[in-house]
């Protein structure tokens, strides 16, 4: 068995597949690109919680098992089997290792034919060799003679000396997890070597290895439990089958998708992720240049190295040109909302059409498919890199800066929690934003309305995140500098605090909207086109509604229609109560 997981099909039939193959299925019939069907009756309280907030009481669909939890379960299984089958605990663990901890299968087979089970796992009911009464015995490996007390045997009685057993056991343990099913050294004998004997004779180091294999053996074959894929993490995650939100966060803080064990990728579904990863590996040679961390400054052409997380770059003096790392356009076109649309996320196919002659146009089209991919890939990869950088920054903040800052400001660290929260938000948003680029790549060009809505929501979210990231990364620097600190800084900090906290909130809200929109398959577009009265009773249902899961009442849609006493901010789309004239999220005028 080499497949350690299987993809649970979260979609109805093959609709997602049809959709992605770029065929003729249109968006209404395809189930959803977002894969996860919103459960209609889980209502508004089951809001999507961003990563780090997940321990706040909302019902979890999974349990993280630490090593101690697993050991405890193993103990319970051993006790249970040992009492039900009336055998020793050592024998019970031999059986459980053979039966991969499947207690009920073990019971069934044992009670059907105990002798057969005993024979196959090597639990002999009586020894095949009777100890002679001699005071000395010959070891079957080194052929030396030893006094009886230095000779040991498994249940079969084949005699080996302490030294040879030790050698046998250490060799087996160092050969791998097969040591859990160790048998008597005699080639014709199948007697199992019990854990008691192994633990008694193994060195400390080997005992440690053995017990690691023993714990790891617990889950490998279980349908509902998987190991956390983070390197060095020993935890497992047990999943509530039936739930279709697969993002889980291990206690080691690694977020991953339980279904496909890739890094968590909500709101994008597993098959899109798998396709995207495959695509990336196929294109990786072409893409190598993109990963290079240096690009020429678009103005003065000197190489600029990106060593910060946010995409706002400044060339070194005297140039000081401020530009966007992704598109190399001037930052002034991006960061502030003067130009209306934040355009860096939008891939404009066939731009400058009409400027080319025919031959050049054809060449352009051939180049186009790679260019299009490049556009999405570069943004996907940059957000990935940026997320890694942010994780490091957060760590640095928690381990070094926070304490210093708290000293300088004479404020307890708990008062500075907003900085940590900002970084946690950045990390989570970089993850979401990254995956929306895979989503965007597979969104067909001809779905114009959806594409526009997607790019709009993505652009808004992205712009908010860049503001937040820049504030957390650059504006905070002033206060971290060891040299220039005096009491005068405090007032500045007084304005920094609410600014960062608010940017965090606003960004969170934008991303919630983005995630919601994508998980609804951008159905807002359909319903806005449809007549507004039909929406409430299933008007948002796809035309091809085939049974369960295909009807979907987008929360965003419902809010547009039903909450007549609310207004949607046209900057951030937050639904504000009628009573307020300023957006509660972004303070935009109604």
């Amino acid at each position, binding site marked *: 068995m080499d497949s350690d997981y299987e993809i649970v099909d979260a979609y109805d039939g093959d609709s997602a597949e049809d959709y992605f193959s770029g065929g003729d299925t249109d968006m209404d019939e395809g189930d959803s690109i977002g894969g996860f069907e919103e459960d209609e009756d889980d209502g508004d309280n089951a809001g999507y919680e961003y990563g780090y907030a997940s321990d706040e009481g909302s019902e979890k669909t999974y349990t993280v098992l630490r090593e101690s939890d697993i050991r405890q379960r193993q103990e319970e299984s051993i006790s249970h089997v040992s009492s039900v089958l009336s055998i020793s605990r050592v024998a019970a663990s031999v059986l459980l290792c053979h039966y991969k901890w499947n207690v009920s299968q073990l019971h069934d087979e044992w009670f059907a034919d105990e002798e057969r089970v005993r024979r196959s796992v090597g639990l002999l009911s009586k020894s095949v060799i009777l100890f002679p009464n001699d005071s000395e015995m010959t070891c*079957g*490996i*080194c*052929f*030396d003679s030893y006094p009886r007390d230095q000779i040991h045997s498994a249940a079969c009685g*084949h005699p*080996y000396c302490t*030294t*040879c057993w030790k*050698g*046998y056991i*250490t*060799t087996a343990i160092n050969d791998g997890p097969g040591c859990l099913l160790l048998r008597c*050294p*005699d*080639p014709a004998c199948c007697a199992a070597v019990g854990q008691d004997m192994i633990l008694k004779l193994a060195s400390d180091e080997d005992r440690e290895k053995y017990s690691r294999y023993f714990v790891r053996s617990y889950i490998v074959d279980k349908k509902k439990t998987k190991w956390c894929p983070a390197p060095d993490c020993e935890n497992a995650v047990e999943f509530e089958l039936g739930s279709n939100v697969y993002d889980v966060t291990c206690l080691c803080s690694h977020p991953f998708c339980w279904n496909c064990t890739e890094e968590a990728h909500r709101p994008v579904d597993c098959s899109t992720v798998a396709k995207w990863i495959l695509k990336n590996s196929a294109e990786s040679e072409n893409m190598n240049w993109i990963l290079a961390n240096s690009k020429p400054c678009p103005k003065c052409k000197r190489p600029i190295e990106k060593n910060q997380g946010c995409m706002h770059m400044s060339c070194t003096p005297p140039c000081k040109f401020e530009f966007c790392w992704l598109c190399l356009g001037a930052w002034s076109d991006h960061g502030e909302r003067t130009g209306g649309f934040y355009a860096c996320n939008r891939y404009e196919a066939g731009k400058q059409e009409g400027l080319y002659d025919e031959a050049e146009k054809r060449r352009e089209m051939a180049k186009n498919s790679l260019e299009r991919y490049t556009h999405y890939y570069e943004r996907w990869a940059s957000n990935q890199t940026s997320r890694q950088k942010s994780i490091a920054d957060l760590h640095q903040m928690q381990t070094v800066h926070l304490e210093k800052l708290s000293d300088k400001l004479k404020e307890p660290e708990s008062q500075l929690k907003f900085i940590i929260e900002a970084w946690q938000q950045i990390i989570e948003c970089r993850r979401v934003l990254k995956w929306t680029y895979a989503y965007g790549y597979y969104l067909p060009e001809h779905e114009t309305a959806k594409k526009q809505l997607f790019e709009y929501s993505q652009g808004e979210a992205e712009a908010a995140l860049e503001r937040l990231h820049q504030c957390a990364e650059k504006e905070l620097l002033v206060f971290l500098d060891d040299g220039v600190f005096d009491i005068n800084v405090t007032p500045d900090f007084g304005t920094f605090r609410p600014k960062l906290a608010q940017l965090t909130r606003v960004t969170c809200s934008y991303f919630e909207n983005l995630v919601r929109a994508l998980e609804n398959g951008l159905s807002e577009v359909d319903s806005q086109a449809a007549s507004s009265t039909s929406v409430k009773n299933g008007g948002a249902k796809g035309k091809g509604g085939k049974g369960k899961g295909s009807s979907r009442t987008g929360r965003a849609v419902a809010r547009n229609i039903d909450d007549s006493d609310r207004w949607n901010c046209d900057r951030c789309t937050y639904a504000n109560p009628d009573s307020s004239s300023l957006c509660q999220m972004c303070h935009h005028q109604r």
Partner: protein
Amino acid sequence: MTSSSTQSRKVLSKIAQNRLQKELAEWQLNPPPGLKHKITDNLQRWVIDVSGAPGTLYANETYQLQVDFPEHYPMEAPQVIFVPPAPLHPHIYSNGHICLDILYDSWSPAMTVNSICISILSMLSSSTSKQRPPDNDRYVKNCRNGRSPKETRWWFHDDKA
């Protein structure tokens, strides 16, 4: 496992020497039929003449087995190959490598040179056709730079070998 067939072999451990001396003494006391150990003063490499059993495809033929012992023999299996020309057999490659599970995964320290040789003899005796394994050329080519058969991932043919 990085033990390679010829160069940089570690010397035998005390335990290995002790055990090999016992095996040798036993061999000389009760020489197994069809097998002849060539006396050398090298305890770490045994060369054994194997004579095909009468009434089998290999009757009247003699081949040479070369057995090299690792530092931690018998916890680790010895490396056993036929010195070319190797017998024509469906589980023996022309470079002398032998596809036999007890030489690799199924090795047990309770086995001896004697028991290995007897297994090989019976593998020869039970053969019904004199031919090379189907993948002989490919395998031998892959072994050209002196790879030990112990570094091969063997997939054991499931007939009686």
